[in-house]
């Protein structure tokens, strides 16, 4: 034995053979239990519905592996919450180092390899101890946050705290075992084990040394080993599972911006999910991956308004439904209200209807989730299940029936679609006429007084520019967005196919619309039905016209303006610059910004059919948002969506005249009122 080889430690040297044997049995049993748990889950995923095609084919495993490595290495998503991000980073990195250290010990002891001595041993001891410190620091940060009372985001469930405590005790017992081992004879080179040596010194100070230290070591080792075995066995269980599923969930997350729903194939199976068995494998994986961090709750407008919806509880409810289904309880029955009936536990037992119908489908939860859970898709899937089961709120059923019968959710006669255009020169496309630029007015632009004002402003701008365009007039019909987001997939697809056929009939080359919902549907969802149109939101069009010098706003406005980013323009489609360019072009208007803006905007409360549905809360979403706008000191609240305009105007009025907000206007209206036309 070389002198370097004396710088090492005896592995399992103080552990009697029967205990060693027992240790191996227990560890293998724990690993077997964990493997069985994962296998059971995996088989459950395999039985589930196929996932809707959100990941583009060809992305494949390379993207998945790269995504997992990048996710674990950089923690980019987690660091958006600095405290939690740092705590998680410390805990994960620390855990990783400790795990690698354990693997090294295993290789040294149970394989012919011999490397754990000398300088490598000293260096490894130092790194492993530092890893342990990081691990304990991270866990202490988590537990410290849980101990505080102020954070309503914390899920105060015992099984969440159990993981943190278990890991903490594994770390603490590890250091105690190391300290007891060193305390037996205190070799000088063990100073590299900075923490262990300190613990050993402490034990020595308490009179624990020699044979007594060996006994402490043996007892501590047994406890440590038992805790580690328990940890392995519990890995697939509840919150523990996020350590395995989280990174995979991130890797299989849908590509593209949040809020875009993939096309549901309408085959023999009804769309939607009424039971856990109706969800796709990816939904089930997502449910298992939830870290319960509550960031989704933090950003959810419905939660902020005190409505019953808590996005995290939707995911946890789905997980509970899966667990109940696997345990053989709560099967979904047939008959009216049962929905698609794919089997398993009924979703309504775990996710109340109020939660499903409160969602504004703004997509903020999807965007906030650090493990890529598409919560919005699960809510819409649940809504589809309720629609297929026939159990929908009256307002939603009214909307469906109005949209089906009159092609607009307002229930107005299609012949009145151009009532707003009285006195304006609005060119309507003739039968079969080829249309180069179609101005898609939308239902709000046709029937809602707030939207009609936008339509009139747009017509004035288009006519001023001398652009050759057409509107469809009475032939226009709802894009299907409200119906789709309320779960009526069949109606959406009927309307979509009708619109696609009409647009093809007119050989439409470009579509211009001032409604972000129509914009999003045409741009992102109609392609799933085989129709791709060039679509432009009016903010993009106006910004382009200003850039090209074709539109020169006047100086008729004064004051301060703040822009509210519509969810389906900013978050869903990433367009946050064009509206600001339009506002910047308006002289005498001082732009302001709300804290939540751009792609991290806060919903106005109208999305996902909530314009028509009204689930009661403590306050109203539009009032919260108007309050945020008023807090900037702006006098004008600008937006680029007719629904946002209606909601924010209601919010402004509910704030009263003291808010300082003078008016809520669309970009097009501001341009017209600036006097440049």
């Amino acid at each position: 034995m070389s002198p370097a080889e004396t710088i090492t430690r005896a592995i399992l040297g103080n552990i009697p053979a029967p205990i060693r044997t027992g240790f191996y049995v227990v560890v293998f049993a724990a690993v077997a239990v964990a493997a069985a748990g994962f296998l059971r889950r995996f088989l459950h995923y395999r039985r589930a519905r196929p996932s809707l095609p959100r990941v583009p084919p060809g992305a494949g495993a390379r993207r998945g592996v790269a995504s997992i490595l990048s996710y674990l290495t950089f923690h980019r998503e987690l660091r958006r919450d600095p405290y939690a991000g740092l705590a998680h980073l410390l805990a994960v990195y620390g855990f990783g180092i400790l795990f690698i250290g354990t693997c090294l010990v295993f290789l040294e002891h149970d394989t012919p390899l011999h490397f754990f001595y000398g300088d490598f041993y000293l260096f490894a001891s130092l790194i492993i101890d530092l890893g342990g410190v990081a691990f304990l620091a991270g866990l202490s940060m988590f537990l410290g946050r849980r101990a505080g009372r102020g954070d309503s985001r914390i899920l105060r469930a015992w099984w969440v705290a159990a993981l943190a405590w278990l890991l903490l005790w594994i770390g603490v017992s590890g250091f105690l075992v190391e300290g007891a081992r060193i305390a037996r004879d205190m070799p000088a080179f063990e100073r590299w084990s900075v923490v262990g040596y300190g613990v050993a010194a402490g034990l020595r100070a308490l009179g624990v040394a020699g044979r007594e230290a060996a006994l402490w070591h043996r007892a501590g080792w047994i406890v440590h080993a038992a805790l580690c075995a328990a940890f392995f066995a519990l890995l697939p269980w509840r919150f523990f599972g996020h350590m395995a599923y989280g990174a995979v969930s991130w890797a299989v997350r849908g590509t593209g911006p949040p809020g875009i729903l993939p096309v549901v194939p309408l085959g023999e199976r009804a769309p939607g999910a009424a039971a856990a068995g109706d969800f796709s494998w990816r939904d089930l994986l997502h449910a298992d991956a939830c870290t319960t961090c509550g960031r989704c709750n933090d950003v959810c407008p419905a939660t902020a308004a005190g409505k019953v919806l808590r996005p995290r509880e939707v995911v946890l409810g789905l997980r509970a439904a899966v667990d109940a289904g696997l345990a053989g309880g709560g099967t979904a029955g047939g008959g009216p209200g049962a929905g698609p009936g794919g089997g398993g536990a009924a979703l309504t037992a775990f996710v109340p209807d109020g939660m499903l119908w409160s969602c504004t489908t703004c997509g903020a939860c999807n965007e906030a989730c650090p493990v890529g859970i598409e919560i919005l898709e699960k809510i819409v899937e649940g809504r589809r299940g309720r629609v297929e089961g026939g159990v929908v709120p009256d307002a939603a059923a009214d909307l469906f029936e109005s949209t089906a019968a009159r092609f607009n959710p307002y229930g107005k006669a299609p012949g009145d679609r151009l009532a707003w255009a009285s006195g304006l020169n609005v060119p309507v496309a003739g039968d079969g006429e080829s249309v180069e630029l179609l101005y898609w007015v939308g239902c709000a632009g046709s029937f809602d007084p707030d939207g009609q004002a936008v339509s009139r402003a747009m017509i004035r701008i288009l006519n001023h520019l001398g652009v050759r365009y057409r509107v469809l007039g009475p032939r226009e019909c709802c894009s299907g967005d409200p119906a789709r987001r309320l779960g009526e997939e069949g109606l959406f697809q009927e309307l979509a196919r009708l619109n696609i056929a009409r647009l093809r009939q007119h050989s439409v080359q470009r579509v211009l619309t001032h409604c972000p919902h129509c914009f999003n549907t045409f741009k992102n969802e109609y392609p799933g039905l085989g129709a791709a149109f060039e679509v432009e939101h009016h903010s993009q069009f106006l910004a382009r016209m200003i850039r090209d010098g074709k539109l020169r706003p006047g100086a008729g406005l004064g004051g301060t303006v703040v822009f509210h980013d519509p969810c389906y323009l900013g978050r869903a489609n990433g367009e946050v610059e064009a509206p600001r360019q339009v506002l910047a072009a308006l002289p005498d208007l001082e732009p302001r910004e709300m804290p939540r803006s751009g792609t991290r905007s806060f919903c106005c409360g109208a999305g996902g059919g909530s314009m028509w549905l009204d689930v009661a809360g403590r306050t109203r979403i539009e009032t919260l948002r108007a309050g945020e706008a008023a807090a900037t000191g702006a006098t004008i609240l600008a937006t680029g969506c007719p629904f946002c305009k209606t909601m924010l105007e209601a919010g402004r009025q509910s704030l009263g005249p003291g808010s300082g907000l003078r008016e809520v206007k669309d970009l097009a209206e501001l341009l017209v009122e600036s006097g440049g036309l």
Partner: protein
Amino acid sequence: MERASVLVGSVALLPPAVPSGLPALPASDRAAMALAMLRLGGATRAYCWRGDEEARRYALAAGAAGVLAIDDVRGLDFDLLLVGAGGAGAGGDLLLGRLAEEKQCAMVLDVLDVQAGGGALLVTRDLGRGARELLSVQGPAVLGISGQAPRLHYVSRYRRLAVPAAAAGATVASPAPQAAARPDAASRDPLAPLSEPWEPARPRARIEGLAQRTAGTATERMNALLGVSSGPAGRMEPGEAGTARTGLEHVVVADAETCARHLLRFLSHHGVIERRLTAGTHAAAPPPGGGRADEPGQAGAAGGPRRPAATPPPPALTGKLSRGPRPPGEQQPARIRGPYGKAPHA
């Protein structure tokens, strides 16, 4: 109730020239299906008019055990029939009245809700202006479902589309002779097999001042207007087939035809409408207010016991109103109407 059946039909909401919506059933027909499925339970049979694909799909999607396509109302076979506006089609409430008369069963219109229990049906009827009437009805019966009935169930578009077109076994041929498909609801005359050509008058009746102002129900006011007794004499005994009793002790005891006859007589008596009867039709009918509610064949026919076969049927309503088609060459009498139908001062 052994067999709950529903007669459903779709309507074209807008003239075809205007781009209209997808084919749809009126709210009353949807409510009729939902009531039959959810309130009455059992295997619900639905009827639809031949060629009305949307109604057939809707009924099957809603969960009907089977849908029978019919060409005329003779194909209907039921213990309890729920009918919506689309199912009644152009016949309207008259179709229900004629059906009730034909089948000699009770009829209730403007039904908001129906519950089965205790061998009878508990029917909630809309009296307008928020007033409700609770009736205990024993079958057989025809219920005209109100468009204001609460929505109990929504049938998704997917479910409707998923119903196979003219699935074998789902649609049973009508017992009536086969006829060419007539998808246009407006061209259908559901009353054709039941009656002689008859055109209901739709006068702009102004009855203010004629009716006594009461605080009672619409039934009471109507009974008072028609002179039909609403006292104990008109009340039917419990357990009688086809009776309709209110929980408010006010009894509707007249079948549709009798009511219609009284109403026409009343209106013509007061000069609201003009009427010309063919010989031997209503000469024997009592004057308004003079009829007894419990006279066989008149009041109580709809709600009372079934008439024995030997009893002569009530006289057919073959009277032709003066508002019917005018024979060629006949001149319309000059009538000068002022505002609101009043003759101007000479």
